[in-house]
C-alpha cells in the first residue's frame, strides 16, 4: 500500500526514536527493580534455604518429614527467585527489542529526503501497490536461511560454549537489516494514509470488499493450518502416552490398556488397593492441582489463567480502540476514566497501549512459567516437553509479532491519529490479534488443563 493524504514531516519520525528511548528506560528500570533488586534478595533466600536443606541432609537427627519440608522450602525459594529474575530479564529484553524496532524504523525514515508537500492536484488519493511486503519477505527468507548458523554464532557470545565465528552471523544479520528496511518503508507509506483510496476487489468472490481485509483473512486461514499441525501432532503423541488420566480411566473402566494399565493393576484397584503406575508427565500434570507430578496448586496455574484473561481483555481493548476511532460523536467518559481518555485521539492511543501492555504481560508470564517448568524437570528434551514448548512457543511468537506491529499502531495513534476514515488499520490488526486469542482458546485447555 502506498498511502497518501497527510504530509508527514521527517521530524515526526524523531518521536519514534524518543519513544524507543522511553521504552528501553522502562525496561532497564524494571530489570533493576525486579531482576537485580528483588531478584538478589530472593537469590539470597534461595541460597539460605539450599544450605539449610543440605546441612539437614547430613544431620542424622532430622526426620524424613522435616527433610521433605526443607526440600519444599528450597524449591519454593528457587521458584520465587526465578519468578523475579526471569520477569526482570524478559521485560528488559522485550523492551530492547521494542526500542530497536521502533528506534531503527524511526531513524531510517527520519534521514530520508523530505517529500514535497501535496497540493491535492497529483492524484494522491489513488492507491498503488507497495514493494515493502516483498522486501520484508525477502529479508525473512535470508534470516531463516542463516538462522542455524546464527544460533551457532550466538552461542559463544552468550557463554554457551563453542568458538565465535563472525561469518555465522552474516546471512541472518543481512536478513534482519532488509526486514527493518522493509518495515521502515512500509511505515513511511502507511503513516500518511488517511483512509482514502483503499483498494477494493473488483471481481468475485470478494467483489466490493477491501483487498487488505480479504488478504488478511486468507493469511489467518493459513495460520489455522499451522496451528492444526501442532494439534494433530499433539493428538497423535497424546493418545499414545500413558498419562495419569489414561491410567485412572483404565482402572475405573476395568479394561487393560497395552503399555499402561495391566489386568493385575485393575484387580488390585477393584480390591480397594491404592494403585500407582508408570505414567507420562504432561505440562498440565505440573501445573494443575491434582496433577500427577504433585507440584500443581493455585500458584502454578495462576500464570496460564492470568494470561488467558489478559488475552481476552486485550481483545476487548483493541475493539474499544477501533470503536473509539470509528465513532463520529465520541464523548469523553465521566469520572476517573476522563483523565485516561480525555479526547478521542488520546483514547485510541491509550486503548492500544493497554493492549500492548497486556500482550507484553502475556510474554513475561509465559517465560516465568516456562522457567518454573524447566526447573521442575519438564524440559524440551522429552516428547511431551517438545510438543508443549513448540506449540505454546509458536503461539508466543505470534503474540510477540503482534506486539511489534502494535508498537507502530501506538506510534501512528500518537502522531497522525486514527479516525473513522483510517480506523480500518486497527480493524485489520484486530483480526490478527483476535485470531491469536482464538488459538489460545484451544491451546490453554489442551496443554494446560487437560
Amino acid at each position, binding site marked *: 500500500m502506498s498511502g497518501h493524504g497527510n504530509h508527514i514531516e521527517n521530524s515526526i519520525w524523531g518521536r519514534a526514536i524518543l519513544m524507543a528511548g522511553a521504552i528501553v528506560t522502562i525496561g532497564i528500570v524494571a530489570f533493576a527493580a525486579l531482576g537485580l533488586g528483588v531478584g538478589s534478595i530472593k537469590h539470597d533466600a534461595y541460597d539460605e534455604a539450599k544450605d539449610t536443606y543440605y546441612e539437614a541432609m547430613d544431620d542424622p537427627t532430622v526426620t524424613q518429614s522435616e527433610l521433605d519440608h526443607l526440600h519444599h522450602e528450597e524449591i519454593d525459594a528457587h521458584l520465587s527467585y526465578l519468578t523475579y529474575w526471569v520477569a526482570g530479564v524478559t521485560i528488559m529484553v522485550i523492551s530492547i527489542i521494542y526500542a530497536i524496532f521502533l528506534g531503527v524504523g524511526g531513524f531510517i525514515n527520519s534521514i530520508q529526503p523530505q517529500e514535497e508537500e501535496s497540493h491535492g492536484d497529483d492524484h494522491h488519493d489513488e492507491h498503488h501497490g507497495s514493494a515493502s511486503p516483498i522486501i520484508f519477505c525477502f529479508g525473512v527468507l535470508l534470516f531463516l536461511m542463516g538462522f542455524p548458523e546464527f544460533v551457532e554464532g550466538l552461542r559463544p557470545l552468550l557463554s554457551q560454549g563453542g568458538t565465535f565465528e563472525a561469518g555465522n552471523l552474516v546471512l541472518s544479520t543481512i536478513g534482519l537489516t532488509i526486514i527493518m528496511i522493509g518495515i521502515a518503508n512500509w511505515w513511511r507509506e502507511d503513516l500518511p494514509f488517511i483512509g482514502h483510496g483503499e483498494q477494493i476487489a473488483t471481481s468475485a468472490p470478494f467483489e466490493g470488499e477491501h483487498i487488505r481485509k480479504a488478504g488478511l483473512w486468507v493469511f489467518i486461514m493459513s495460520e489455522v493450518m499451522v496451528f492444526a499441525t501442532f494439534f494433530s501432532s499433539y493428538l497423535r503423541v497424546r493418545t499414545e502416552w500413558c498419562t495419569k488420566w489414561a491410567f485412572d480411566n483404565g482402572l475405573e473402566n476395568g479394561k487393560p490398556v497395552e503399555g499402561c494399565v495391566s489386568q493385575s493393576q485393575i484387580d488390585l484397584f477393584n480390591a480397594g488397593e491404592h494403585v500407582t503406575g508408570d505414567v507420562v508427565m504432561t505440562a498440565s500434570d505440573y501445573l494443575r492441582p491434582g496433577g500427577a507430578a504433585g507440584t500443581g496448586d493455585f500458584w502454578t*496455574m495462576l500464570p496460564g*489463567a492470568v494470561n488467558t484473561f489478559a488475552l481476552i481483555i486485550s481483545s476487548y481493548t483493541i475493539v474499544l480502540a477501533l470503536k473509539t476511532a470509528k465513532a463520529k460523536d465520541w464523548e469523553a467518559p465521566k469520572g476517573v476514566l476522563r483523565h485516561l481518555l480525555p479526547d478521542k485521539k488520546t483514547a485510541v492511543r491509550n486503548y492500544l497501549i493497554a493492549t500492548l501492555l497486556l500482550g507484553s504481560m502475556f510474554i513475561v508470564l509465559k517465560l516465568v512459567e516456562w522457567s518454573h517448568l524447566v526447573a521442575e524437570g519438564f524440559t524440551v528434551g522429552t516428547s511431551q516437553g517438545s510438543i508443549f514448548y513448540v506449540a505454546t512457543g509458536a503461539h508466543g511468537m505470534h503474540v510477540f509479532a503482534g506486539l511489534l506491529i502494535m508498537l507502530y499502531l501506538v506510534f501512528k495513534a500518537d502522531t497522525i491519529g486514527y479516525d473513522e476514515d483510517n480506523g480500518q488499520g486497527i480493524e485489520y490488526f484486530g483480526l490478527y490479534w483476535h485470531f491469536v486469542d482464538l488459538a489460545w482458546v484451544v491451546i490453554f485447555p489442551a496443554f494446560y*488443563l487437560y
Partner: protein
Amino acid sequence: MGEHETTGIIESIVERLPGNKDIYFWNFIVLMVFTLFEVGAVFFETVPGTEIRISRFAVWTILVVVGIVKGYGIAAYFMHLKGDPRIYTRTALFPVLFVLLMLWGIGLSNPEAITELPSWCTPDWDYATSR
C-alpha cells in the same frame, strides 16, 4: 467491531439488558465468565461447597463446551464474522476440512504417523545430532 450491524436473537437479548452496553461488552463479559468456569472446572476436584466429585468426563465436557462458546464469541463478534458478508465466513471455514483431515489422518488414525515416516520426508537426524 465491524462495519455492518449484526442482528439476531443474541443481539435482541443484549438490547434489553441494563446499562445500555453494546454486544462487544457483553461478549467480553461472557468470555471472562466462561474462562473462569473453565479454570474452576480443573481447579476444583469437587463442586465447591459440596462433596460432589467432578469427574474427568465432566471436566472434558466443560472444556469442550466452553471452548466452543468462546471460539464462537471471538469469531462471530470480535472478528465480526456475524456482521460481515458471508464470503468471510466461507473463507474462515475453508480450511476446516483440511484441519479435520489432518487431525484424523495424523492425530487419530495412524499410530506410525510420526515415528515411521519414510526417509524421504524425515530430516537428516544424524546431521541435526552432530550440530
